[in-house]
């Protein structure tokens, strides 16, 4: 019985995604909508965790999206396209992604990290924060790739 229910649920998930997947939730801290579907294309606007994008098309590993009136491309690894509209199939206003959004931020989160830090003062989060500041700009990476005869995508 349990197996039958799970099978049905999985089918609904898969079918729902196939039929009505038209939004995507940003699942990284920050990213960008780019003019063209490739790395190093100019950034049109920044997007942040849990922003909801409307997917208009797919182009390889990229999604063509719109967000707050801005159209462009976002890489598929920065978003989760599980936010299918159950309502569009079922006539219900409720969407699975609302649950996902409410789930976001739960679990191992900043509150848990803060409490862990309090009991482990030896853990060097200060240096971890420094490391997270080690970033390379799109322009410098593009130049680095080109100078080395590497693929810029």
């Amino acid at each position, binding site marked *: *019985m349990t197996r*039958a*229910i*799970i*099978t*049905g*649920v999985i*089918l*609904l*998930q898969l*079918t729902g995604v196939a039929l009505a997947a038209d939004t995507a939730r940003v*699942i*990284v*801290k920050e*990213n960008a909508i780019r003019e063209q579907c490739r*790395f190093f294309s100019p950034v049109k606007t920044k997007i942040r*965790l849990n922003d909801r994008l409307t997917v208009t098309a797919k182009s390889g590993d990229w999604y063509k999206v719109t967000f707050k009136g801005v159209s462009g491309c976002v*890489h598929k*690894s*920065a978003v989760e396209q599980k936010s299918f509209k*159950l309502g569009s*199939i*079922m*006539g*219900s206003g409720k969407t699975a992604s609302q*649950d996902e959004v409410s*789930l*976001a*931020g*739960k*679990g*191992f*989160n900043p*509150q*848990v*990290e803060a*409490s*862990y830090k309090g*009991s482990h003062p*030896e*853990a*060097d*989060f200060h240096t*971890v924060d*420094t*490391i*997270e500041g*080690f*970033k*390379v700009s799109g322009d*410098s*990476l593009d130049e*680095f*790739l080109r*100078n*080395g*005869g*590497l*693929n810029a*995508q």
Partner: protein
Amino acid sequence: MTRKLLHTALVLSLFLPGCRLENLSADQLDLITNSVSSTFKAARPISDEEEYYVGRAVAAKILTSYRLVNNRKLTDYVNLVGQAVAIHSEKPFTFGGYHFAILDSGEINAFACPGGIIFITRGMLDAVSNEDELAAVLAHEVGHINHRDGIGAISQARWTEALTTIGSQAAKTYGSKDVAKLVGLFEGSIDDVFKTLVVNGYGRSQEHAADLASLNYLAATGYDPHALKTFLDRLVARSGGSQGGIMKTHPATRDRVDNVAANMPEQKSDAAHFSERSRRFASILGK
């Protein structure tokens, strides 16, 4: 009985023409929706965001034993090589992004913390001969992150217990009792990952898979994938091919070399660009 009816309705609605979910009542639809949601939540894997927080804590723990090399030019260079291969991986963007740092240690090693922080030791930088070999090492670590090998070290029982606590709270913030329980589980998770990364190392199949990922990322980026084999050959020669050897957590064994050789992608070598990459490598590392 209700469950059976719902299941039947669900399957019929999906497969029989003319039988549509619109025909179900609002209550039934809500029940199905809640069932879908709670079933998937109950079995959900660790999210990218949770992986990020575990990875930060693992990195913070590693940093209790190592200091960073304070050389911005070298760190920037390692980050450029690392990002070059990372954008050619299956997952160019992680929750907090990829960040590469150099540990001030003569050991030859590298660690991929869940989520995207990758450590490489000064000893490893001394051991690689050129930029393509450095890229091979970093690509191998990016492979571990793409495969979620680090986070996979967390015991299933611990995660199931964490989910029980997480699931009992509707709000994003927790009461003190739940926080204490979650922190205990968080700490246990960090220990699980740390032991695998720093003490025991990954299993043979995970190492092989990360090597194959490295070959693919190198080829996609335009680096010479043979660099991985050359580097592993040298490590095997140094360590005598023994398990453990100079890389306890990434044992350089003959079967790894054979695995890499058997899966080597076709790649035309470009001597001029290889020389240019080797020149900038030597210039920055002072070799």
